């Protein structure tokens, strides 16, 4: 497992896929850290991002807007984004704000990685 330079956002790479772990509260501060880490991973050559919300209890609208920003960045980099292990309440919020139209949701990290297998050779499908 790779620890990000900032020391607060955990992440690791599986092939060309970066898995980034969101913390228990996704707000402006933690959202920006995730965004920074995603940018770093994409610059390093990753072609897909998995953001793992297993520990996330609460998200706020600023955090969600940052996630949308991350999706935009990934799109510009031809990278796919999968959100893994999102609890029901957070899914509800994502639906309300239209996030689910732009991102694939996976039950957990393993399912997310499995969805992304062979991604290198296949076009991005949202």
């Amino acid at each position, binding site marked *: 497992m790779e620890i990000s330079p900032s020391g607060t956002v955990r992440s690791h790479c599986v092939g060309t896929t970066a898995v980034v772990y969101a913390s228990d*509260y996704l*707000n402006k*501060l933690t959202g920006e850290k995730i965004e920074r880490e995603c940018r770093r991973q994409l610059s390093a050559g990753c072609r897909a991002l998995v953001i793992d919300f297993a520990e996330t209890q*609460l*998200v*706020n*609208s*600023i955090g*969600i*807007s940052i996630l*949308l*920003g991350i999706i935009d960045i990934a799109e510009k980099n031809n990278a796919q984004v999968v959100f893994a292990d999102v609890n*029901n*309440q957070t899914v*509800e*919020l994502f639906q*309300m*704000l239209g996030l689910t139209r732009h991102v694939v949701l996976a039950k957990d990290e393993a399912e997310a990685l499995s969805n992304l297998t062979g991604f290198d050779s296949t076009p991005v499908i949202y």
Partner: protein
Amino acid sequence: MTDAPSDNFRRVLGRVTREDFVGRVAELDRVVDQASADKRGRGLLLLMEPSAGVSELLRQAYDQLFNRRNEAIPIYFAFTRHETTAVSAAIEFLNSFLQQYVAYRRNEPALCHSALTLQELVELAPSSDLQWIEQVVQLYARVRFSNDTRELVRFCLSIPQRVPQGAGRPFVILDGAQLAEDLNGDLVLGPELLRVFTRSGFAFVLAGLRRQILNAAHEAQCNFERLDFLRLEQLSSEEAHLLVDHVARRQQVPMSREARDLMVQQFAGSPFFITSFLQAARERHTALVSYLDCERLYADELLGGHIHYHFEDLLEEIAPQLDTRLSLIQQLWESCASDEQSASVEAWRKRLRISGTEIDEVLRHLHIHELLNWKGATVDATTGPQTWKDYLKVSYRLGVLNEPRALVVADAITDALKRAPHTMALHYRQLAHLSLREVVSQFDCQRVPRILFDYSAYSQKYKGAPEAEIVQGLEEEVDVLKLPQIVHIATGESFNSDLRQVCEEDKCFVAHGFENGTYSDAQAVIWLVAEIDSKLEVETDLAELWSERLDSLARIHGFRRYQSWLISNEGFSSEASGRLARRGAFSSSKAQLELLVDHLGVAAAQRNEVESPDEFLMVVPMGADNELMAASTVEHIARRLRFDSTAINQIKTAVVEACINASEHSFSPDRKIYQRFRVENGKLTITISSRGILPSVGSGIASKTTTEFDDAAEERRGWGLKLIRTLMDEVEFEKVDEGTCLRMTKYVRNGSV
């Protein structure tokens, strides 16, 4: 019904805006209503407690009527200390009347404030009024130089009657009538006013000190059937809190809630003292954050501020001679400090070294201003507001004892500081307290379980039992007591001043009543009720002491049939209960009292007066993820209401969003988020507020920055409110003078478990 201020509402005489006029809503409605056509010929006497504040109420009423523009033409006149004779006051009344009449007819409020001669008023009069106004001015010129003072005064006061039919209906509002009696001259203006106005056939309002106005009405031999009365007392705690908040904001005096509450209690809700005090704070650039801030300013006020000059002016009027005044201060303070409730008028006269007529005049004035009670040959100077007593004390020490000023100031501050916690403790106790007076006064031949008046039997049967079992048991009790119908209730100390030494005023009462609601000697009964302070069961000695006190009170006053009833928090020891029972006294614990209250059905009314117990307040600093604390708190509260987990998460998210909103858009000076969580029938109402600028002001700043950022990102930042609206059932912004205040409500669904 008063009118809600609209955009084109013009402030004419009001010193504050309608929004800043706090409390007195019902009174304002009543005064305005007096101007209605069906009140024609009726006078409204506003009987005011001293320092209760009446001028602004009358000015607000004037403004309401001026803005209504209907047939009633408001005329406001305040007697001031500048007028020294009845004649000059009456002439001033005539001038004001014509000026305000013309201002109303021309619909030009500014005319009310202009300095105009009678001739100028004639020139300004609308053509439809020119003839009668011109006639009045000519008549006035004749009467003015006729050397008949009485005729001149009556002519001036009768001006409303000279308005011809069809030229509007004058509605005269007279303010400060207490001063009218002090004017020199051949006639006393107060009764003369009442004589003229009550016979005039038009509606009017006369406001004055309650002890004086009624006397004046009797003196003027008024037809009481044509008079209505409105009593104006000090503000309630809630109204006074609101007043302090408004005035402090207007005067830009920073103030803590603790200081506000203390001020309200210390000044007993007096609008006059409260506004004077806050004005002083503004003048001295003093923030009122702590008790110390308040009491330092209070000491300054007593020794040389607005409060000092208020009492000094009063004493100068009552006793113009310095030596008499100093003797009066000495006499007043020494009587007050000695707790000597009754002294002879003759003793006062000798000590003041003045004549019988002079002492009557001095006592009459002090009595009218409620600074003492004067009953025939005796005087009780122990009454009066605390502020008056404090003023007397410092004046006595400075003027009579010639003590060093620094020492008096230091003592004034320390005394007030020592008293402050007690003042507040008393207030808090009263809030938490079931009002015994209220309970007893509700006795009206109800049948209640007798066991509620017998602690020994109650504790044997019910102590420690579950509430439901107690309620059920009481329902099944067959031994019932029929309560008397209480017709009068007064404090014990009003019957025996010695009781003041041993208990608080609201803990001992004498209630006169009749059994079975039959008004006969045989059915007359007096209940002597006392609440004993004790954290444990009251022991025999104390119980007997109190029982004896009540018996003694009955003996002294010759009560033939009476019933003693002692109440203590935790009841009485078994021996004490036995002794009380043998003496025929009832005994109850607080629990029994509460059950009795439930039986009487007064609980709801009383408890509604207290703020809802299901209300939680929380203040968190902005930033540092403190919205999570709010979310965590609301989660606990929502669980109590049995919201399901989905709803709880929705509420938490909404609270988080509201907090972020408050932090981002308010430019808050104190950087705090105020939260109120209120649990009501099947719903949770959350109010999130912050101080700072209004959102509309903030939006200007936001729009400027929009150009600097990506539009889409900025749009996303507006999602908070969208989320809140989606997650909660009702969302609305409350109108506040500054900052934001968002109220959100979530209902418990039937499906919630």
